[in-house]
């Protein structure tokens, strides 16, 4: 520290900048590597799961097209195995798939869930629902939860806070399925305030008119509320716990002794420190949006990615599964990258170690 002060300002700045660039480049390299590694592992894991689209097809044929001749079924299966490239050796499938994903504009091949719609189109179709409803509500839940949690941590000895903690603990651990179902039954059916399900009124077609948009908004409220209630409670509790542990630290006592205003302490010291893990938590939850709360999509009949993944899993639709997982891996890792790059801004101490 003493040495640093003696150095000229410029030199420090240059070396600092170089370090920063070095850090960013290194972090980006790690990011790319993790992306590839996670995708590769996911690819092979999927292929090791028992069953492939065609075994499911055979099963479905045996029921849906009751008297279909076994030999005829074999021909059908052989065709689709070829369409989905399932007869190639695994490594060839992998190389082909990776190549297509990177060099042919995320061409994941045809989907089986909605054959012959290409997987890419299917994902593009479903993505707005997941992003529009779930990502938005996770973000809102995070903002509300973090704010509430900070206040609750700050005022953590008030009686009212105890009650708030009890309520949020209750909400956090109640299975989201029950929260959603409760809202559907009570708000949707008993009170008739809002439609109990569906992305928008079933007879409408997506157009930019008020009838459609208002229908869309009305249908979005309950699913968003379900997610926000459960996740928001979790964020609140997490933030509160962090605040309390930060508040217990010496430097805050020290700051107070120095006569720093309580609000300044909250803003500049406590909040800032407690936010770090909270931001990390956000990145994780956002990434888990896909599989964590797909049940909300199912209950509210929203055509999102979560439902699509479950459907694809049920049909062993590898193309769609991989497409979604690739997307989800990309989203989580990118968010993590952003968080990692942003954290030093929040906490100078981490910057120092980089």
């Amino acid at each position, binding site marked *: 520290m003493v040495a640093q002060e003696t150095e000229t300002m410029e030199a420090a700045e240059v070396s600092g900048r170089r370090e920063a660039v070095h850090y960013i480049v290194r972090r980006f390299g790690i990011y790319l590597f993790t992306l590839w590694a996670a995708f590769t592992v996911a690819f092979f894991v999927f292929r090791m*799961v*028992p*069953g*492939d689209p065609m*075994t*499911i097809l*055979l*099963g*479905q*044929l*045996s*029921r*849906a*097209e*009751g*008297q*279909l*001749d*076994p*030999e*005829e079924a074999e*021909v059908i*299966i052989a*065709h689709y195995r070829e*369409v989905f490239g399932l007869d190639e050796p695994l490594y060839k499938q992998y190389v082909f798939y990776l190549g297509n994903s990177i060099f042919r504009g995320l061409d994941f091949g045809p989907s089986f*869930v*909605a*054959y*012959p719609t290409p997987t890419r189109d299917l994902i593009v*179709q479903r993505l707005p*629902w997941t992003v529009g409803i779930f990502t938005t509500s996770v973000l809102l839940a995070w903002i509300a939860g973090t704010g509430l949690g900070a206040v609750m941590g700050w005022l953590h000895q008030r009686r009212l806070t105890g009650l708030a903690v009890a309520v949020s603990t209750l909400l956090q651990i109640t299975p989201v399925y029950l929260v959603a*179902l409760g809202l*559907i039954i009570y708000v*949707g*059916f*008993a*009170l*008739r*305030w809002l439609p*109990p*399900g*569906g*992305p928008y*009124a*079933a*007879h409408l*077609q*997506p157009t930019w008119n008020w*009838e459609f948009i*208002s229908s869309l*908004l*009305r249908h979005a*409220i309950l699913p968003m509320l379900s997610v926000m209630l459960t996740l928001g409670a979790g964020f609140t509790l997490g933030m509160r716990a962090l605040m309390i542990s930060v508040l217990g630290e010496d430097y805050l006592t020290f700051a107070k002794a120095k006569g720093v205003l309580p609000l300044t302490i909250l803003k500049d010291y406590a909040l800032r420190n407690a936010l770090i893990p909270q931001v990390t938590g956000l990145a994780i939850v956002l990434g888990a949006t896909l599989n964590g709360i797909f049940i909300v999509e199912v*209950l509210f*009949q929203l055509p999102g990615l979560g439902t*699509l993944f479950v*459907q*694809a899993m*049920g*049909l062993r639709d590898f193309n769609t599964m991989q497409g979604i997982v690739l997307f989800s891996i990309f989203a989580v890792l990118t968010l993590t990258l952003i968080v990692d790059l942003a954290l030093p801004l929040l906490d100078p101490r981490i910057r120092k170690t980089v």
Partner: protein
Amino acid sequence: MLATKSKRLAFVAAMAALFALMACASPVSEPIVIEVTSTPEPMMPAEVELVFGDLPRDETFIVASQAPNNDVWDSFNHYQAATYNNASGYNQLTQEMPFLEWDGVIYPWLAQSWEYDGDGTELTLTITEGVNWNDGMPLTIEDWLFTLQYNADNADKGIAWASFLTDIEWRAEGSNQIVFTLPESNFRFHQNFIGHIAGAWRPVAKHVWEGQDATTFKNPDAIGSGPYRLVSANSDTRTVIWERRDEYWDPERLPAPKYQVWLKRPEADVAVFEWEEGAYDLGRIPFQLMTRMMSANAHIKPLVHQDPCPRGLIFNVMNEPLDDPLFRRALGLLMNRQAVANLANVPSYVTPVLWPNTGEIDERFYDAAAAEEFEVTTFDPEKAVQLLDEAGYALVDGVRLDKSGNPISLDAFYIDIGDPAWTVWSWLLAEQAEKVGIEVNPRLLDIPTFFAQGPNGEFDILFRWFCTRPSDPTAMYDGLHSKYAMPIGERSSGIPGRYRNPELDAIIDQIRTGDPASAATQELFRQAYRIWAEEQPYLSLFGENEGVAFNTQYWTGLEVGQPWVHWGAHFRQMMVWIVPAQ
């Protein structure tokens, strides 16, 4: 549920909240609010109740399907494997079959009759004239010939009802007959044109399909010969709306509902409320929810029908001691079938044959003496012990040993689709087996895994259903042919127990070339039944009854006892019975 007063209050509050929530609500809701707040009476229904925008409720038939994972709502191509889902109404409302079969009777539809020559190498099919497509174009023999050629040309494209045309020649005779020349004697060729529980070969419109790819063409206007035409299809809301066309070619069989809406119903917990509100007319719902629905809405009636596929248990004969027929019979005696049948969602029945039978079994295909002699449906643990002892499975310290001296332990695979009978059999079997010193380990599989493990032969005891037709139960034995006994790990498209029996193979081969209506073939069927009963490569478990919910508020005419399956081709016939409620 709630007192009327509080309901009204809540409604007002709800409207107020809605207004607060969105500064300007949709213009439609404004007058309703004023009406509600100003009059003390609950909301009076308008003159005509409208659903799905502007469809009069009493002219609309709403089918709430339980669509499978395939999520195809805007592609109307029955050649695509993924479209076999029957959930959009396409197959039921626009795709008519040459013939329909229910309860053993065959009804002419797009075709009138068929005739074999003496040795079964030539078939003459007479088609119905005056038929039209739902876009108004006539359906002629040209369309039939086009489709036959189209299917044959695309047989390698993975389309159903195509490979049966291999090596077959056909020619038109006049404007209403097609003569098929078959390479060898085959008295089942006509079955390809009969819609039973599901599809059959059917003509497609030449002017629509010509030049189109068989598996990727979406047939966007859902052209077919049925009485409805497509209004709209939405993949987001999973709803398809159909409108009746009044120029349909057979006024006698024109369905009553002017509109039909086919949609994917929500999860059972939510759907039950939709049902109570009368939002649907027909649909599958887990039957345990019916009691509550019926007490909440007196219009809802359960319709029970027989599932066309009885359930059974397959033994993997590659695994010791399941290779021993006596051991398999002993396991059969340990299976309390009646208890399982009673636990099914809709109480079901025990059957000694694996084809659908409405109470009485067709004796022409069935050997009652063999069923009795080999006790194919009996629950008798004492007899089982006796058989096991006689066959040399010694009981040592309470554990039964196989012939190499190892304790017997078997995995019993089941899947859980929410029907107790599908899961409980394994636990009941395990309980009984434990008493005689055999370990049976019930294992739940998720459905796709189940479909992989089964055909690959990676199981000891496997639950499965058996689909065959009562007028020709060949499929009950055909899957046991040695040609399907693949090595373990390779997919078998037959009954996957790896059973081999040259004697049965010979009988199956004869059955396949014989005419199921002839006395000689029926004698072969009875011989095959006797072999099956003695060997028991698989067990008959129970025949299942299924229930669907039917809302009689707007439509009636469907009754218990009518022999149909609403999710299959039978729906076309059901539509004729449906009449408006008064």
